[in-house]
Each structure stands twice: as C-alpha cells, then as structure tokens.
C-alpha cells in the first residue's frame, strides 16, 4: 500500500511533527508512513484523511 501523505502535507504546509500532533501519534510514525514502511490502522488512516479533508482512498492506495 502506498500513500500521498508527503505530497498532501506539503500542500497543507504541515511539518511531520504538526501532522503527528494532529493525529495523536509520534513523529516517527509519520516518517515510517511516508517511507511506506508502515501500514496504518483504519482509525489512523481515517484521522489522516480528515486532516487533509479528503477521502481515505485519496491518501492511501494500492499499486
């Protein structure tokens, strides 16, 4: 599973730390998500998509 977190984060001018605080996780988790080294839970995926005001499938997608 891939994601567009880095791209959306840049669009919303958010740092990894700010996004981490918004979705209540540690910064490392955002780093791992952006590197595609971690697949989030449904709740975290939902929280992240809410921050970017898009659907989950617009953030996370399968190749």
């Amino acid at each position, binding site marked *: *599973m891939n994601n567009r977190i880095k791209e959306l984060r840049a669009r919303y001018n958010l740092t990894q*730390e700010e996004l981490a*605080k918004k979705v209540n996780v540690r910064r*490392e988790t955002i780093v*791992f998500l952006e*590197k*595609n*080294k971690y*697949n989030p839970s449904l709740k975290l995926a939902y929280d992240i998509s809410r921050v970017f005001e898009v659907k989950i499938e617009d953030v996370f997608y399968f190749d």
Partner: protein
Amino acid sequence: MKKTVVLFIIAALVLITTGLWIFSGHSEIKPAELISLGVIALVVVFALFVGYKRLTSVKKGEPAEDEMSKKVMHKTSSMSYYISLYWWLALMYFSDKLKFETHTIIGAGILGMAVIFAVCWFVYNFIGDRNE
C-alpha cells in the same frame, strides 16, 4: 509516563546490583565476567535509550507510545521469544559439552534473551511493519 519511570527504575536497579557484585569481595574480574558486564551495560543503555525516547516524545507533546510503537513491541516480543527458544536449546547442548555451572547457564540464558530482545527491537524499528 509510569512505564518510563519503571524503565529508569529497572536500569538503576541493574546498575546498583552490578555495582554491589563488583565491589563486594571481587578481587579481579575474569574474562567471562567481562562479557557479562558488557551485556549488562548493553541492557542498561537500551533501557535508558527507550526511556529517553519516551520522555522526549512526551516533552514534544506527542504520546509516549502510539499504534506503531505498540505494534513494533508486539512483533519484537513474539520474535525474540521464538529466537530465545533456540538460544536455550543451544545453551543446553553446549552445557553438556563444556560442563558449565548451572548459574552460568541461567545467567547466559537471561542475558542472551535480553540481547535478542534489544536486537529484534532495533531491527523492527528500522524495517517497520508493513504487514503485507
């Protein structure tokens, strides 16, 4: 926060116990004991490192642990348990061949388990958890 305090207490207890062991009637440290001391130092450094990571996260306003760190810890626990079984098996085999004393074998077993856990934790923190 409670877990962080527990981590620091464990590290302090290990250090105090090791200090007592070294300074109570030990004239010289044997090479085998040096290895044990090295592993103890590794365990203490690992505990302090994890505790420090948790503290810095809390200071930044982030949670001390989140879903990824919990997942990594679960994977680390299961994998280190699995590898530890083989570690004990190897110890049993070599204890017959090399005639180790019982307390040496138990000590090596426990210290080995600690090292295996630390190594697994670092590996899973590096490779992450894609679960695919």
